[in-house]
């Protein structure tokens, strides 16, 4: 079948990719200040991952019960509804292209999972990238067993589908997100015997200035801490799940104490019965749409890469702004702050006037303060060099291609691989459906010389899978009439 391409409508002043906190804030302010804006998002609802919530048909009377600071989102959603923004839902952006006349083309595939036979291209004078992040994983024996799910994944499924992966769920990994996940799972009726955190929290105390400047973060931690106490959830610091037990699904996990470098301390393993494990080691900025264009990146203290941005959120490629987790993971409040800042910067560029110098300076101060805290957080929860000690040679590193630790170690020790890309070429690790999103960090660490891992490059030619018919249709003239128009086959030239 020929996949005809549709174009929603002419040339927008601004196209925003991602309808989470950053994208919503950027789109809404730019529209309110007079720009024509399209907001493109893969989901059917706005909110991104943080404000993910049940579909209307689930009739949630209290969706805010699973959220922090819901009023910020409901305010942005109300302003979105009152605006003239074209909110293009179910659009999965796979590429951005800068045209000869300095305008942009955003290429998207449509449908719930991007498999609808209707590609779309949207044209823009400027772009704001607000694509958020995905969860970072470190492998361990048994992590591919059903019942082992991402910590953020468990929360995402709970927020949108109102379901749990089990009744008795251990939460493990590293990062403050684990506290929020454990609190939501427990509030939703799961028994959470323990939260297993690989880092200590003492690292935060070494940077008191960032802590004092961000008292709301301490307050958030206290709220989660109180919820965990109420649900009798024990938090174990400097520990990790080092093995999962079960044949067809999770039956128990082994939790082992770690030394300061994250090496398991022999003889400290404790078996804990559970029927699910929610695990994650923080978040990775999702930046491939920008890196494909050559945007500069910066290494973050947790060994991931974020986009390098100027004081007004513009990337190193003129006309492309970015906000939120794409510049480094820092949470929803930082995301909407940066989103608004970027939106105002775009308005200033296109209309040739500053919208409100005082407001911009205030947003910048707020951003810098929260970025400082994000750096402390990233540093505190960066994987320690000793974590590979808990792997066995037959542990899968790459879930898609089923590449084991043994294969990766052979590529490094015998074949001379020194980075994730070379390991990929030699073993297929990172060459499957997810394109290394789940194994990239682990492979980079295992390939590192002297234990200092370079972040994987996060360069992928396509941000989502695209069918050959979609690529073939790029040469076709775009079909007018908008996304709602019925697809019709266009004869080739």
């Amino acid at each position, binding site marked *: 079948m020929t996949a005809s391409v549709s174009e929603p409508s002419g040339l927008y002043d601004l196209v925003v990719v991602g309808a989470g906190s950053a994208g919503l804030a950027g789109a809404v302010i730019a529209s309110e200040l007079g720009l024509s804006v399209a907001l493109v998002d893969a989901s059917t609802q706005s909110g991104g991952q943080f404000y993910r919530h049940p579909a209307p048909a689930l009739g949630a009377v209290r969706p805010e019960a699973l959220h922090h600071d819901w009023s910020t989102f409901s305010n942005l959603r109300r302003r979105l509804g009152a605006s003239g923004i074209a909110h293009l839902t179910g659009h999965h952006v796979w590429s951005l292209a800068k045209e000869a006349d300095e305008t942009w083309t955003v290429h998207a595939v449509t449908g719930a999972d991007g498999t609808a036979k209707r590609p779309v291209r949207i044209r823009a004078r400027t772009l704001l990238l607000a694509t958020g992040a995905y969860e970072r994983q470190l492998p361990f024996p048994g992590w591919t067993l*059903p019942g082992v799910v991402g910590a953020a994944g468990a929360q995402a499924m709970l927020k949108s589908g109102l379901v749990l992966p089990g009744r008795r769920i251990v939460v493990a990994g590293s990062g403050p997100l684990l506290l929020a996940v454990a609190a939501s799972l427990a509030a939703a*009726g799961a028994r959470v015997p323990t939260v297993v955190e690989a880092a200590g929290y003492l690292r935060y105390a070494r940077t008191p200035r960032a802590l004092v400047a961000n008292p709301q973060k301490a307050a958030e931690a206290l709220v989660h801490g109180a919820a965990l106490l109420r649900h009798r959830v024990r938090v174990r610091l400097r520990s990790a799940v080092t093995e999962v037990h079960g044949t067809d699904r999770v039956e128990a996990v082994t939790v082992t104490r770690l030394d300061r470098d994250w090496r398991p301390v022999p003889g400290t393993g404790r078996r804990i019965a559970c029927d699910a494990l929610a695990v994650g080691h923080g978040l990775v900025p999702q930046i491939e749409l920008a890196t494909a264009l050559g945007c500069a990146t910066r290494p973050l203290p947790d060994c991931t890469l974020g986009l390098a941005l100027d004081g007004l959120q513009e990337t190193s490629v003129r006309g492309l702004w970015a906000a939120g987790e794409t510049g480094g993971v820092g949470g929803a409040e930082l995301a909407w702050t940066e989103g608004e800042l970027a939106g105002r910067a775009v308005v200033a560029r296109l209309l040739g006037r500053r919208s409100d110098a005082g407001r911009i300076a205030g947003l910048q101060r707020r951003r810098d303060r929260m970025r400082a805290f994000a750096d402390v957080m990233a540093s505190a929860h960066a994987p320690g060099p000793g974590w590979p000690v808990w792997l066995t040679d037959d542990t899968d590193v790459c879930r898609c291609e089923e590449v084991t630790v043994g294969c990766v170690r052979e590529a490094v020790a015998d074949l001379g691989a020194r980075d994730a890309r070379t390991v990929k070429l030699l073993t297929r690790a990172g060459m499957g459906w997810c394109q290394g999103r789940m194994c990239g960090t682990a492979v980079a660490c295992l390939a590192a010389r002297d234990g200092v891992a370079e972040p994987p490059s996060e360069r992928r030619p396509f941000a989502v899978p695209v069918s050959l018919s979609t690529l073939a249709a790029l040469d076709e003239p775009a079909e007018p009439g908008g996304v709602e128009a019925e697809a019709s086959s266009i004869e080739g030239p």
Partner: protein
Amino acid sequence: MARTPTDLVGAQPDPPFEITFDGRSVTALPGQSVAAALWGAGILAWRTTRDGGRPRGAFCGIGQCYDCLATVNGEPNRRACLVPAHPGDAITTQEGHGHDRLGV
């Protein structure tokens, strides 16, 4: 204290409907993804891997990991965590790359 996620958010969903998983009837709530409906029925695996034949299901929950690929109404490689469940949907365990019948 809430005993279930639906209690927690005070959900009053539209009437539930049936889908099937490998021929077995599963109750889904309107608005749930295929993966959520399967989790709701206690089903955590609906795919077997290409090389090891190992069971897999939803892992990342947001469409990034592709571990939740399922065959939906005969169409393989659908991301179950993104695809909404519809009444009468037939979900079947996807084996390997899902294209065995093509002989590739």
